[in-house]
């Protein structure tokens, strides 16, 4: 048993047996309870299997085929999105969908059906998966696509690694003129302005996202910075790609209500928050946090929670206003707060999170019961408006909430491999029997 292989939130901390995979032709090992573990970028306990085995997939990191004419890439499940970009971008291709970090495995991107700043155009990651091979504990390998084994495809996309081990996948990439993104950065003073900006921008811009000041209250409530962009041909100095690393875990969270207010004030008023016709390299545009490796240590030894919910457009402004009011009042938030409008492209998975409406994502340093109480009160709002919380970010939602957010869970449960499980799955289905 080793306490290593934490989730990105560094909470909860579980003990696991770790089994590393490196050969996609090998049969599964025989364990009672297993869970695939990619690069550990999901936040809560969907990548944790307390007391059981983790099948670490990073050793399955081979490219299988790439067609530079059609942009179809075939690779093993442990390949990172960053490795794919390094391979295909020089040949004019880019992932159709990328989340806010490029250090995720393809298997993890499928299992969490991740989304990005272009959800309103492209949908989520599963929309661009052509097929994959799923290894089950009975030894069978299922080739799954929209045409073959469709129900297994739908269960495995967003299936949190519970339906078996994804061995390899074929994904469709998109052509790009190069590594540059052109667009604007705009301040907004309220949620109302955000919705207007977003609605106006979604037709002309492939990528839209907003940072929101979760410490702002009163007349500043809902203020933030809106970014929008498109792939553009340009030339310039590529950033050197070197990263800083958070060298240690501080004994206390460095994020508190004082540092948060100060940071957010500076971030909102910095000159770079207002830019017209800016050109960004894709790395700072998509992955600002990837430039500091292990930044998650900043929250100290108790880790942090992330809360990401999606609420239907109807009533979104009222629901988000109430959430922001509660968060600002609590002083428990962090500067990492993101707001985006999802589009209408249907997600492919039974348990996929993206759905039409607005999505809000925030970090919360773990301060124990007060943090949990705040998050539960946010869940009450999400439940009331018929929204959902993202399992990939969750370490605490109740079984009742989960079942309301994901009514397809019962049907999904039929596809869970009898030898696969996770701490998350046991937590949200504990009263199933």
């Amino acid at each position: 048993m080793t306490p290593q292989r934490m989730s990105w939130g560094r909470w909860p901390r579980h003990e696991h047996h770790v089994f590393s995979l490196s050969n996609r032709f090998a049969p599964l090992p025989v364990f009672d309870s297993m869970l695939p573990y990619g690069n550990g970028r999901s936040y809560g306990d969907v990548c944790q299997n307390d007391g059981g085995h983790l099948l670490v997939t990073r050793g399955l990191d081979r490219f299988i085929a790439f067609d530079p004419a059609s942009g179809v890439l075939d690779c093993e499940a442990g390949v990172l999105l960053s490795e794919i970009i390094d391979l295909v971008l020089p040949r004019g291709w880019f992932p159709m969908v990328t989340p806010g970090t490029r250090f995720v495995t393809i298997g993890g991107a499928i299992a969490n059906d991740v989304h990005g700043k272009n959800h309103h155009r492209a949908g989520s990651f599963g929309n661009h998966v052509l097929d994959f091979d799923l290894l089950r504990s009975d030894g069978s390998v299922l080739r799954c696509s929209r045409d073959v084994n469709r129900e297994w495809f739908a269960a495995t996309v967003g299936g949190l690694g519970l339906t078996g081990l994804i061995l390899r996948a074929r994904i469709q990439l998109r052509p790009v003129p190069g590594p540059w993104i052109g667009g604007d950065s705009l301040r907004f003073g309220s949620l109302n302005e955000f919705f207007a900006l977003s609605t106006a921008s979604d037709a002309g811009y492939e990528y839209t996202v907003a940072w929101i000041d979760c410490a702002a209250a009163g007349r500043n409530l809902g203020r933030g910075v809106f970014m929008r962009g498109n792939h553009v041909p340009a030339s310039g100095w590529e950033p050197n790609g070197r990263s800083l690393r958070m060298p240690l875990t501080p004994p206390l969270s460095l994020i508190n209500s004082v540092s948060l207010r100060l940071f957010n004030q500076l971030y909102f008023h910095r000159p770079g928050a207002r830019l017209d016709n800016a050109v960004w390299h894709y790395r700072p545009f998509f992955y600002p946090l990837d430039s500091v490796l292990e930044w998650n240590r900043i929250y100290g030894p108790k880790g942090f929670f992330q809360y990401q919910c999606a609420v239907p457009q109807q009533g979104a402004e009222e629901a988000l206003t109430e959430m922001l009011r509660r968060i600002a009042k609590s002083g428990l938030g962090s500067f990492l707060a993101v707001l985006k409008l999802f589009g209408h492209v249907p997600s492919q998975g039974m348990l996929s999170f993206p759905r039409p409406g607005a999505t809000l994502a925030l970090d919360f340093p773990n301060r124990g019961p007060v943090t949990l109480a705040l998050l539960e009160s946010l869940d009450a709002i999400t439940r009331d408006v018929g929204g959902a919380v993202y399992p990939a970010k969750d370490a605490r939602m109740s079984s009742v909430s989960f079942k309301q957010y994901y009514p397809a869970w019962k049907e999904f449960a039929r596809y869970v491999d009898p030898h696969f499980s996770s701490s998350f799955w046991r937590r949200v289905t504990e009263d199933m029997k």
Partner: protein
Amino acid sequence: MRRILVMGATSAIAEATAREFARRGDALLLVGRSAERLRAIADDLKLRGAAMAEFRVLDARDIDAYPGLLDDATRVLGGLDTALIAHGTLSDEVSCQTSVATLLDEFRINALSVMALCTHLANRFEAQNRGVIAVISSVAGDRGRQSNYAYGSAKAAVSAFTSGLRQRLYTKGVRVVTIKPGFVDTPMTASFKKSFLWASPAAVAKTIARAMIRGTPVVYTPWFWCLIMAIIRFIPERVFQRLRL
């Protein structure tokens, strides 16, 4: 462009090192026991930039097949100037103590086959007045310890053999590189508990590729093993015999 033979190409260290050369556009011939795994690695190396990545299935115990293998490699690659010898097994010490047959078999895989292949390569590279022979030895070969002296003595033989070979070929323009990895997190060491001393195959591979390109005689990877082994070698035998290492 280098024309490289990789022996034991499905090992994690060999595969990671092959990627370093693929990135530089070199041509590779991979040798191992599993055709499907070799094919998967070759496909990957081609996509990563290798000018060529072919494979041959051969058990390293089949020492008589080496001359034919080298002829084949020279033909396929259009020449041969670099070899990475990375095959081997991590012998189970207890089995080697209870079975002499196992001990001899392990020695054949980890020492004799390596020395035989080095000899064939040396004679060919000497004749063409250039080449690099890189051999994965181990820090375990620096001093015999009760926990793995069967494996360690085989690696000690490889280290001593390559040291002599290096002297012999120095004036002929051929470089011999002895690589001594410490703890590397690979399938071979999957059952060990990992600590801060453990390195990834990718990190070790970068050091190995650099040493092969520069012709560095002996390289410890990660580098701090040089210090650790200096201390271990320095302990007098009178004291060492009482230790449980």
